[in-house]
């Protein structure tokens, strides 16, 4: 068996600089979960269909199971572990808790990262935009109703806080 060539990569993970030695065919998902111990990002299908492994690469939501690790060299990765600021939960996280948006919670990390990417791009989305924004994330438990409600609630909350700050 021939060894796949290894690459030394550096990237920022939730704001901190990290490095890893990865094989050419390693996925970002495997590097996060197996090498770096960031198990918040979930593995649901490995074919980019379920969205459970959604992370942000340079602010854009992507399926970590489809991205080869060497490709993230020099880029900024955000995972669910970096969504809260220390003990202070992100408004999306608070809204998800208050609205009962998660049941089994397995889709949650990916769902929240897709929602974050959406609100970063469209701070005041319509319900239709929210549904489109999370349409790549499958939730089998909730029927999405409370997830959509929570994202809308978080967007209003963030607009209010942003407004006060301005």
């Amino acid at each position, binding site marked *: 068996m021939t060894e796949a060539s290894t690459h030394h990569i550096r990237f920022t993970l939730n704001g901190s600089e990290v490095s890893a030695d990865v094989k050419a065919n390693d996925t970002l998902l495997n590097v996060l979960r197996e090498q770096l111990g960031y198990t918040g990002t979930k593995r649901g299908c490995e074919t980019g269909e379920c969205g459970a492994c959604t992370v942000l690469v340079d602010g854009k939501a992507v399926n970590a199971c489809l991205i080869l690790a060497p490709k993230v060299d020099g880029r900024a990765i955000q995972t669910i572990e970096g969504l809260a600021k220390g003990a202070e939960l992100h408004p999306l996280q608070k809204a998800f808790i208050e609205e009962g948006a998660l*049941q*089994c919670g397995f889709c949650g990390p990916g769902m929240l990262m897709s929602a974050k990417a959406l609100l970063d791009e469209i701070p005041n989305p319509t319900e239709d935009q929210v549904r489109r924004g999370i349409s790549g994330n*499958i939730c*089998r*438990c909730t*029927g999405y*109703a409370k997830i*959509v409600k929570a994202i809308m609630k978080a967007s209003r909350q963030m607009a209010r806080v942003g407004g006060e700050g301005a």
Partner: protein
Amino acid sequence: MKKRGRGMACMYYPLGFTSYPNPSAAFAKYNPDGSATVLTGAQDIGQGSGTVLAQIAADTLGIPYDRISLIYGDTQAVPMDAGSVASRVTYIAGNAVKKACEQAKSILLDVAADMLGVLPHGLDVADGWVYLKDFPEKRVAIADVAKTAEVGRGRPAQGHGTYNPATTLLDKETGHGKPYEAFVYAAQVAEVEVDTETGEVEVLKIYAVHDCGKAINPMMVEGQIEGGIAMGIGYGLTENLVIEKGHVLNPQLANYIVPTALDVPPIESAIVEIPEPKGPFGAKGIGEPSLLPTAPAILNAIYDAVGVRIRDLPATPEKILAELEKLEKEKAK
């Protein structure tokens, strides 16, 4: 042309196994600081039993919800349970938890009666206190009673409980018997739009009315209803594992189509809360029933919209178009 229609469907569904015993057991103890630990064999699989059982324990033990620690998930350490299946956990495991807590509470009240110089049957618990029902100012903190019970009287305030629904086997010849102790009921209305050119169905709205006895946690009941409806939409319209000559042709989510946020319409749900006398605090269950009426309600709405009845699930655009074509031919005759 796009045509709209509405359809409805009812259902009834039992709590627990058919005929066979399916017990739950639980253990509860007041800790000497007035918090409590409850052991259950019921596994939270995302449906929320870990929260609902803790709510049942908190109310029965008379202490705040956030001072309950509910432990499950270890077959060597927690009491047995027949499983998080059959929409049985709130009703059966809930009854077991309630009985365990009641036994712990009766020891607590005995000791409190002694401390307060009253008879135990005049006492009750709430918000961390044991108090005299007719004169609530006379009270003592549960923490003090629990500590006294354990270190003062050597009689820790703890208890266990089991519950198993009363059922019978079905007669081999007639099928007669009482296979279940309690049922829940529901009905839903679906509004759809059918595109007669493409055969595509858009579900516009679902109205869902469900009975779950007393709702221990209405937010979670709604969550079960909404999630069940999404699964019912998939069952009715898209989900189909194609197995040809024993070989699965679509073993990926790319072509086994489950509903996304774009496929689930607005849902208006209501709970008809009629307490079940045998349920814990009048509660029954909701897990499986939520999905049952959805697919037939949608298919009945398709019939209402375009006059074709799809008798083979799922109601794909191809099947609808084929039936529409048949209908046209019949009309032309």
